[in-house]
């Protein structure tokens, strides 16, 4: 019995230990350190005085906290459904049996391997007014207007959403593609015998079979979108006038520009709890369905 335990499980310990130590030091420890930090007046340099829940109280009355939290939520609302639908459509296209399959899979996925600075630079380059590619195309087809993609609040959101979709849809497409390839072919064969149309096959076989992976993508997407920061900072800088500033940018500014790590940590915890609650609801939902 003892030998079996060693052979099966304990043997793995030396291999797992390095990662486990790194995980403790770089993930678990900072979580508790952050909690401590949020209860203190804490600058970039040192811990000052214990302030209890003052930072949390300040947060509740801080209009910038609520505004940036709303901006982030708006981003989640704008991107999540679009991401689900688009990645599913692309996965269906990439799953079709044609000689372009490899090309399609590659071209949909390639943007997700680019760094955020590259995609942001490309977006700025293409969308700049007067001589950017997009506006030039608009002028060529007779539209004389000069849209300021990054300076008008609505257009800035549109820009950020489209760039984010373009950048990260490939990863979700791969997940859907894996789900599609897991659907037993026999189900489609059986439905064909019963005379099902293409739409009916999609409606009654493909969609229900993709539901579990769809839920995982939904959860991952919501969590990732709530953490949006880099592409907004690089494309609009949170502007115009803070109109697209997400909560992480505000936390970053308070912590590192205003030298107030205690308050920044408190806001990070608020975000952490929001994500925790969303994850619990989603996981419960999945459990109940099973």
């Amino acid at each position, binding site marked *: 019995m003892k030998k079996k335990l060693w052979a099966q499980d304990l043997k793995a310990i030396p291999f797992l230990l390095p990662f486990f130590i790194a995980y403790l030091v770089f993930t678990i420890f900072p979580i508790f350190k952050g909690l401590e930090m949020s209860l203190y007046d804490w*600058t*970039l*340099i*040192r811990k000052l005085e214990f302030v209890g829940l003052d930072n949390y109280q300040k947060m509740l009355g*801080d209009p*910038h906290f609520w505004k940036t939290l709303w901006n982030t939520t708006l981003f989640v609302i704008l991107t999540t459904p679009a991401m689900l639908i688009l990645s599913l459509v692309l996965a269906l296209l990439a799953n079709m049996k044609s000689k372009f399959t490899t090309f399609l899979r590659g071209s949909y996925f390639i943007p997700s391997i680019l760094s955020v600075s590259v995609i942001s630079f490309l977006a*700025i380059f293409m969308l*700049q*007014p*007067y*001589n*950017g590619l997009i506006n030039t195309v608009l002028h060529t087809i007779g539209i004389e207007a000069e849209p*300021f993609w*990054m*300076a008008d*609040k609505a257009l800035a959101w549109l820009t950020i959403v489209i760039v984010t979709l373009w950048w990260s849809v490939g990863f979700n497409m791969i997940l859907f593609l894996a789900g599609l390839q897991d659907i037993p072919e026999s189900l489609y064969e059986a439905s064909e015998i019963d005379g099902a149309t293409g739409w009916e096959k999609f409606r009654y076989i493909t969609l229900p079979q993709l539901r579990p992976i769809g839920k995982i993508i939904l959860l991952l997407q919501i969590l990732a979108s709530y953490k949006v920061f880099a592409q907004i900072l690089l494309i609009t*800088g*949170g*502007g*115009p*006038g*803070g109109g697209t500033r997400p909560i992480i940018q505000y936390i970053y*500014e308070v912590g*590192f*520009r*205003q*030298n107030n790590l205690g308050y920044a940590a408190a806001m990070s915890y608020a975000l952490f709890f929001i994500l925790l609650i969303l994850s619990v609801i989603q996981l419960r939902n999945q459990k109940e369905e099973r």
Partner: protein
Amino acid sequence: MKKWLTLLMTLVLVTIMLGACSEESSKGAKVPEGATEVVLWNLFGGGDADYFQEVVDKYNDSQTDIFVNNIMQENAEYYTKLLTSIGAGKGPDVAIAHTHVIPELVSQGLITELDSFTSNWEGFNQNILDATVYDGLHYAIPLDTHAQIMYINNKLVAEAGLLNDDGSIKMEETPEGFIDFFSILKEKLPKDKIPLAFSNNGSDPYWMWWAFYTQMGGEAILTDDIDNPKYALDLDKAIKAADYIKDLYQEHKVIPLNLADFYSDFQTGNAAAMSTGVWATGIWESTDGLDFTPIATPTIFEKEGAWGDSHTLVLPYYNKADQEVQKAAVEFMEFAADNGAIWAKAGHIPSKTTVIESDEFNKLPYRSNYAEVANYVNFADRTIYARGVQDIVIRNLDLLWAGDATAEDVFSTVEKEVKDLIGE
């Protein structure tokens, strides 16, 4: 055979790793044997970095006892890294710091006063030097001031009939004269030429607002109290200055909105004028065929005033600092200030009047056109909140330039946010 292969692979890997390690350790520069190494951090990019390296090289070549190891840090995160590294006792021996960040460094005890090391404060421009003194002690050796100025494209301005024979511009230095100048350019130049290439977000329009606000007699946003300042904005003047600039975009339309890169608009000869910091002088000089003149931002209101900041050298504080290294660091600082003529090639105005009067500086073209700005440049308020306040004002003013808010609303929000920041 397999064992041999494994051994060979291991040897190759170890060799590669050792190679990488030795590469890393010699990163930066080789310290000559017997010399005291002084680690210097700077935040320069573009042309500035080369001119600064030239100053360091000249110092290293001038003697053999001290070696300054000049390390360029990434600009955007420079101060976060500098503050935390010094706080952790692992920062540089000497560092570049802007004047507006010195209050934070002094307040947090991160830099050492320099009067224990030198009493050589003669020959500096008093306006620039005063900005580095706290409680009667000098905390930095300033290298320069870099003010916001204007650049004129001689060809386009002459085409519009606004250039005098001596190369000066035909502009009446009044609020109306300033607008008239650009309105005439707009009227007389071809439609594809820009009267004034300028940004409508970020630092540049904020600097212009600060220049006009101080020209109107506005003195501060916060009182000069390092840790506990009070809100001190002169609201009427702040609104008047902001509305004046807004009208350049919105009413007179002499500045096109949302230019993607107003530097390149001027550099390619598509703009009759532009406004930014003095550092652009070095860039325009190296641009083939660009016939330009730099001028100080015109004094169009009651008194002289311009936005400016200053690059200074500071001595980080450590509990167990090596006195020998500190002395060497201060020696380098003084050398750098004395050799401001090299640094001035980038466009900056040297901090020492002795340098400004030197032949080496005066041989540089254009600099004398604006060197006088150093005497009246208005630095940011001397508080630990300077960076935070600047972020707030810039973010809110951006709404005004774009026509999305009134100046009254903007400064009402600024007041709320700034008071919240300083805990008033």
